[in-house]
C-alpha cells in the first residue's frame, strides 16, 4: 500500500537519505510522480548561468540589477534569477552585462554565421561598421534579397563618401 495516500498499491520504491537517516518509501505511481517532481527538477546549463550573470563590471553591479528593458520591462535582476531573457530587445538593454557573459559562454561576442533572416530589417539598423554593412550586402545578394542589398549599398556609399570627405579635409 502507498505510504502517502494509503489508497493505491505501492509500485515505486524510493530510498531517501536526509541527515544521515535512511528512509524507505513505498509509493503508488501518482504519489511517486508528485514526489519525483520535487526531486528531478531540471538543472541545466541555463540554470548555471545565474552564477555568471555578475560578470559585468563589479562596481556597476547594483545599477546593473536595476536596468529594465524598455521594450518588455524585464530587469537584469529577473535574468539573474531565471537565466532567460524577456525579449530580443533585452540584449541591447543589458549589453554591458551580457557581452562579457556571451564571451564566457561562447568564447566570442560576435556573430559570424552565414545566415540572415530573409526579412532582415533589423540588421540594417544594427550594422554600423563598413565591414558589417558589406557582409550584410553580400548575404542579401546571395539570398536574392535585392531590395535589402540596395538599401545596404546606399548606406555603404554614404559612409564611404563621408570618409572620403573627412580625409580630403585633412
Amino acid at each position: 500500500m502507498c505510504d502517502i495516500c494509503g489508497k493505491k498499491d505501492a509500485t515505486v520504491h524510493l530510498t531517501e537519505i536526509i541527515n544521515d537517516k535512511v528512509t524507505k518509501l513505498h509509493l503508488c505511481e501518482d504519489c511517486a510522480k508528485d514526489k519525483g517532481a520535487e526531486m528531478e527538477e531540471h538543472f541545466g546549463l541555463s540554470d548555471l548561468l545565474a552564477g555568471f550573470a555578475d560578470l559585468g563590471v563589479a562596481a556597476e553591479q547594483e545599477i546593473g540589477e536595476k536596468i529594465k528593458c524598455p521594450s518588455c520591462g524585464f530587469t537584469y535582476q529577473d535574468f539573474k534569477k531565471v537565466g532567460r531573457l524577456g525579449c530580443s530587445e533585452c540584449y541591447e538593454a543589458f549589453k554591458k552585462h551580457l557581452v562579457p557573459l556571451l564571451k564566457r559562454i561562447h568564447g566570442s561576442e560576435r556573430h559570424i554565421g552565414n545566415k540572415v533572416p530573409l526579412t532582415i530589417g533589423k540588421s540594417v539598423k544594427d550594422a554600423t561598421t563598413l565591414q558589417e554593412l558589406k557582409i550584410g550586402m553580400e548575404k542579401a545578394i546571395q539570398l536574392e534579397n535585392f531590395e535589402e542589398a540596395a538599401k545596404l549599398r546606399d548606406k555603404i556609399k554614404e559612409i564611404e563618401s563621408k570618409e572620403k570627405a573627412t580625409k580630403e579635409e585633412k
Partner: protein
Amino acid sequence: MTLEDFLKQDSEWLKGTGPSANIVMSSRTRLARNIEKLSFSNWADKKQLERVNSIVRDAVRSVSALKNSMFINLKDINEVDRLFLVERHLMSPEHAKDVEYKALVVDPKEMISIMVNEEDHLRIQVMQSGLSLKDCWATINELDNELSKKMSFAYSAKWGYLTACPTNTGTGLRASVMVHMPALVFTNQISKVLEAVAKLGLNVRGLYGEGTEATGNIFQISNQVSLGMSEEDIIDNIERITNQLISREEATRKTILTKNRAELVDRVSRAYGTLKNAHIITSNETVTLLSAIRLGVDLGLVKNLDRRMINELFILTQPAHLQKLENRELNPNERDIKRADLIRGKIK
C-alpha cells in the same frame, strides 16, 4: 494523419540506414528562432503567446515542406499522447509541461518538427538516420529560409539570432548525433574518449542515464558554442569528431571480436536469451539488453534480427508507447509485463 498512424510507422530517423548507421543511430539539427517585437515565451503575456501560435500556424500552411504536416495544440491532447511525442524525440520533455499555448508541428515522416512556444517561439528540428548532419542542415536551412519569409525573426548583426537563453544566441543552431558505442564502454575507454570530446568544446551526455554511466551505451554529442562560429563550421566540427569516434569504436569492436570473443558472444547470447524469454522486464534492463543485441547484429553474431527492428524496440518499449499500443493506462508493473510480451513477439 493522426498520432495513431505514427505508432504504425518507423520514424525517418529510426530506419537504421544512412552513413555509419551501425554506430550513429541518428543526426539532428535544431534552430532556435523568435519573432521580432514579441516577448520570449516565458515572459510573454497570453495575447503574445496566442499571436506566436497563430503566426506559426498560418505560416506552416504555406510552406511546401510542411504541406501535409500536423499542427497540434498540446492542450488538445492528453498526457500520454504528449509523452508519446517526447519518446519519439519530436519534442523536449519541457515542452510537455504547462501546455496552454504550446503547439507542435510534425511532418508525416517525422523528420521535421517545430516546437511552438517552448523556451523560444520556434524550435525547428530536423532528424535523420545515420551520420547525416549535412543533409539535416540542408533541409533545416531551406525550411528556415521559407519560414523567415513569413515572419520577422529577431536578429542582430552583432549577435545573430536572438534567443531566450544566451547559450543559444548567434546561429541558434544545436547539431547533435546519437552514437552507440558499446565496445568503448566494454573496454573502459569511454571516459577518456568522452573527456577528449568535451575538451574540444562539445557536449556529451548519456541518452538514458547520466554521463559515462549511460544505460544502453548511447551517447548524445552536440555543440556547446553557437556564437562566433558559422553554421557550416559547427556541423563540420561535430562530423569530424564523430568520424573519429566511429573509427575508434569500429577498431575496438574488431579487437574484442578476436581477443574477447567468448565474453562478447556470451554477453550477446545472454541478452538474446533474456529478451526472448522474459515475462517481466523493466525499461532499464531492456535498454541494456537491446544495446548488446544491437552490437551482436552489427558484428554478424545475431543473424535473424535487423537493426531497424532493434531501433524500433528502443522506442516502442517506452511507457507512453506501451500505453498507446494497449490503448489504456498501465501502471509500472503492468508495463513491465506488456513490455516483455511485446519483445517476445518481435525477438524470436
